[in-house]
């Protein structure tokens, strides 16, 4: 039998790109069937490809959340019902209103229309599909490997995050050890004992951070080439342009009449974000031992993503 494809056969970036594509398709589609298909596909992918790893154990959590969102959307439509005379009544509940002492009284229940219910369910399904798509990526993509493929400009922060992920289990055991030792001194329990537990662990953590830093620095961490002045200026200006364009663009998108402008600004924002990250990455001189290599399996998933994306743009899923 051929080698089995599992989560780590593909790069973590591939899984995330695939997940984002699925989320985009779910976002633009108004068709409940498509949403259900995406939910099913995401779930299917998790169950087939997942490996034995801490980050792949939360399928139930994502399923619960997805279900919760669908139910919440429908419940909101029923409980905080806006009665629509054009809609065919599905459930006729006695309506009443509550006055909270401010604003108009809140209308509750009343005749719930079929369109309201299906609309609520479709909206909920769309979000469920997005949640499950992201859940799929986070179940299948190894966060450590993902950190290794972050752009160089974020290398330092990615290092801190990967140190944190590596240290967390150790931290749990030292918290338990200190808690046990603390009982030897008698004294208070509950929240009051927080200081006695947190401080020794924190002090240990600070000491170990220093020896970790010494070890990192002794092996060359902190070497960086310097950017020329124009490049530094360029990086900073493109960042400024990016956040400015994204912020103003978002606002323009919301206020009506200016939506085209909004989309243009957001596009400019995205482009200058990448420019800024690119320039900032240039100051790094370090190399990577196992740079990402695209495998057949990656190519397969990525072409599928591309097809989905094209179809979404052509409006096939509307």
């Amino acid at each position, binding site marked *: 039998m051929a080698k089995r494809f599992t989560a780590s056969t593909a790069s973590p970036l591939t899984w995330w790109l695939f997940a984002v594509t699925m*989320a985009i398709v779910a*976002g633009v589609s108004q068709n409940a069937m498509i949403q259900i298909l995406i939910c099913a596909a995401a779930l299917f992918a998790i169950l087939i490809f997942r490996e034995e790893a801490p*980050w*792949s*154990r*939360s399928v139930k*959590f*994502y399923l619960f*959340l997805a279900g919760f969102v669908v139910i919440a959307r429908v419940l*909101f*439509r029923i409980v905080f*019902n806006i009665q629509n005379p054009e809609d065919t009544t599905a459930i006729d509940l006695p309506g009443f209103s509550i006055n*909270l002492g*401010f*604003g108009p009284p*809140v209308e509750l229940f009343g005749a719930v229309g079929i369109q309201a219910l299906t609309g609520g369910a479709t*909206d909920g399904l769309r979000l469920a599909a997005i949640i499950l798509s*992201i859940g799929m*990526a*986070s*179940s299948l993509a190894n966060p450590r490997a993902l950190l290794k493929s972050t752009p160089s*400009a*974020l290398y330092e922060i990615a290092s*801190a*995050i990967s*140190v*944190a*992920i590596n240290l*967390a289990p150790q931290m*749990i055991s030292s*918290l338990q050890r200190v808690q046990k030792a603390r009982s030897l001194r008698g004294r208070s329990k509950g929240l009051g004992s927080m*200081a006695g537990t947190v*401080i020794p662990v924190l002090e240990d953590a*600070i000491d170990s*951070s*220093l*020896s*970790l*830093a010494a070890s*990192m620095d002794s092996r060359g*961490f*902190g070497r960086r080439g310097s950017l020329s002045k124009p490049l*530094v200026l360029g990086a900073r200006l493109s*960042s*400024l342009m*990016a*956040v*400015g364009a*994204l*912020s103003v663009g*978002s*606002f323009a*998108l*919301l206020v*009506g*009449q200016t*939506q085209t402008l909004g989309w243009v600004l957001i596009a400019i924002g995205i482009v200058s*974000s990448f420019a800024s*990250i690119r320039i*900032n990455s240039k100051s790094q001189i370090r190399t990577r031992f196992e740079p990402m290599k695209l495998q057949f399996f990656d190519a397969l998933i990525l072409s599928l993503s591309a097809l989905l994306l094209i179809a979404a743009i052509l409006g096939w899923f509307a």
Partner: protein
Amino acid sequence: MNTFSGKWISNLSILLAGIGSVLMFSWPFFISGDSAAEADVAQVVFIALMPLMLVLILVEVATGEIGSKQIALLGVLIALNAVIRLLGAGTAGIETAFFLIIIAGYVFGSGFGFLLGTGSLLVSALITGGVGPWLPFQMMAAGLIGIGAGLLPKFGSRGAKLAVLIVYAIPASFAYGFLMTLWNWPFLAGSESSISYLAGAGAIENLIRFLQFQIFTGGLIWDLGRAVTTVALIAITGPLLLGSLQRAASKTGFVKPSKPEDANRAKAPGLSG
């Protein structure tokens, strides 16, 4: 990182990004009537843009003078905070992640506060599997709390410091709750219920609807729980934690030791022999 400053551009970017990201939380207040059909699209767009906003701020913060000691300290504090957060998880309204973000942000400065806030929520989501479209928003909100803590006035006496932190913790906890409820509001209630946002109705009308949503979903109780635990933890652990973190700050070169005793202590790490 080099003599050419241009640092103000960087700070301006962070400020703008902060304003922009608050907009991405509070869009239901501003959305106009004729884009009602686009409301759902807006939500998806912001879910996609928020991570980009985060990355931009992170890059700006990281390009400062940030060395191995700061990175290692950040790593262990994120791990500690993520683990402390796990301990508190599951009990309604108990949120144990913020006291450390606030105290550390105060001691180490805004940039560190932002990194610790975003990092703590990211790592705790990675270890528990809570990654979802809400995560970048939680990270941003927690990061903003960290930035705010770094901007608080630095008093000399420990009592005054503690008072400032406690006074800050209350609005900060509520602000986090407010932002996250704002995010949940369109996410859970959609746009077509009697307590959903009403596109084009203006900020005031929508604020009323938002408060009604808060009351019906009990969000305020959670926010209150978060504020109470954060204040209590700062009050209980603050006096000692401030001392420990200030010691760490002088060891890791965040501040130059000013008094001889501090400098004396600064030599201690791993130098027992």
